[in-house]
């Protein structure tokens, strides 16, 4: 369990950033994952007093504060209206409501966890992260970056007209996913992200005309990723599941298109 000596509730992002430049400091978001780590730190910097716990909707985008909880994502009317069922589906199996009342969107994204449902989901959308010093960059680019001591302030999801669906498989209902897939679609393109392979989620973009049928397209998408083996399943099994889930998501999106 994490131990630390000083708790500082940051009064500004500048203060949080400066405190976080020391290796002995750590940013505390929901503290669900951080808490179970065996680490000793000097200072825990709490962002909960900075008003980053809301979801703002504009004509162009959703702006999600880093301290917004997964439960807020799950039940937000605007998000659920624009992306029907997507956030509900990607959050509902994450432990329980009490957990989702604590875990934050910022913590999930900044951590870039291999098991993350949230990262997988947002990666298939036109998502950007707003870093305090690093500015606004695409989520995909952020995923490829090494960890640094910047602070994730907000997540921005553009309303670019994509329709998206999510599916995951679990050994038991509230366990980490065995595989997590999210597919979004525009008229010509599919954006496929796959997480829990068990590595962190990655994205591939394929044109609808690249293959003759949905099965072939799904196989093509699944081929873009590397799969690993752990106690939940083998890499081979994960790849097979990816082909199946991605095909199902393609089919469901086609049905929606009519």
């Amino acid at each position: 369990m994490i131990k630390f000596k000083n708790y500082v509730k940051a009064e500004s992002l500048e203060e949080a950033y400066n405190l976080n430049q020391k290796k002995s400091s750590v940013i505390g978001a929901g503290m669900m994952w951080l808490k179970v780590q065996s680490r000793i730190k000097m200072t825990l910097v709490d962002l909960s007093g900075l008003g980053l716990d809301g979801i703002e909707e504009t004509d162009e985008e959703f702006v999600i504060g880093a301290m917004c909880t997964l439960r807020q994502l799950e039940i937000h009317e605007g998000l659920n209206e624009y992306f029907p069922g997507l956030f509900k589906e990607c959050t509902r199996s994450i432990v329980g409501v009490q957990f989702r009342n604590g875990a934050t969107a910022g913590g999930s994204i900044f951590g870039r966890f291999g098991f993350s449902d949230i990262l997988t989901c947002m990666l298939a959308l036109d998502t950007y992260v707003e870093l305090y010093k690093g500015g606004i960059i695409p989520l995909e680019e952020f995923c490829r970056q090494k960890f640094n001591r910047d602070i994730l302030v907000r997540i921005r999801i553009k309303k670019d007209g994509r329709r998206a669906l999510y599916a995951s498989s679990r050994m038991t209902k509230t366990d980490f996913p065995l595989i997590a897939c999210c597919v979004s679609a525009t008229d010509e393109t599919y954006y496929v992200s796959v997480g829990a392979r068990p590595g962190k989620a990655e994205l591939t973009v394929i044109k609808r005309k690249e293959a003759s049928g949905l099965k072939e397209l799904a196989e093509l998408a699944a081929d873009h990723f590397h799969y690993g083996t752990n106690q939940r399943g083998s890499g081979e099994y994960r790849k097979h599941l990816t082909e199946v889930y991605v095909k199902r998501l393609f089919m469901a999106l086609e049905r929606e298109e009519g």
Partner: protein
Amino acid sequence: MQIEFTLNGRLIYEETSDDETLFHLLRRKGCYSVKCGCETENCGLCTVLVNGVSRLSCSYLAARADDCDVVTLEGVQKEAEEFGSFLAAEGAEQCGFCSPGLIMNVLAMEKELDSYEKEKVKEYLAGNLCRCSGYMGQLRAVEKYLSRGENRNEC
């Protein structure tokens, strides 16, 4: 550091270490209904309400409870007794260790949801583990508890 918060309706001033969890503070204050089963945020035994929202006190820093309203089972005795009677009637308790956390989450659910379809209820309570009951008795008790108003009207 010193924090000030409301615990079951009582204003509390308390000295806490910077990395103490709310769970440990509540136990120190005599709220023994709050249990710690897993310490990995999976079991729901440590559920309390913070500003009306169900939270896992084992992963909630006591320092963050400053200026908050915290409610444990000790603060909702009447509601707990009422729901507890439904649990007893359905034979839904064995060791009873998980009941305080379950009751707190059921009370939070009752306030938060506007309808109680079975799947919705099961999903809401998925974070409350029970190692002895197998959940069926608990679910029957929850269903009957949530529809108790309707039954009264029928009578």
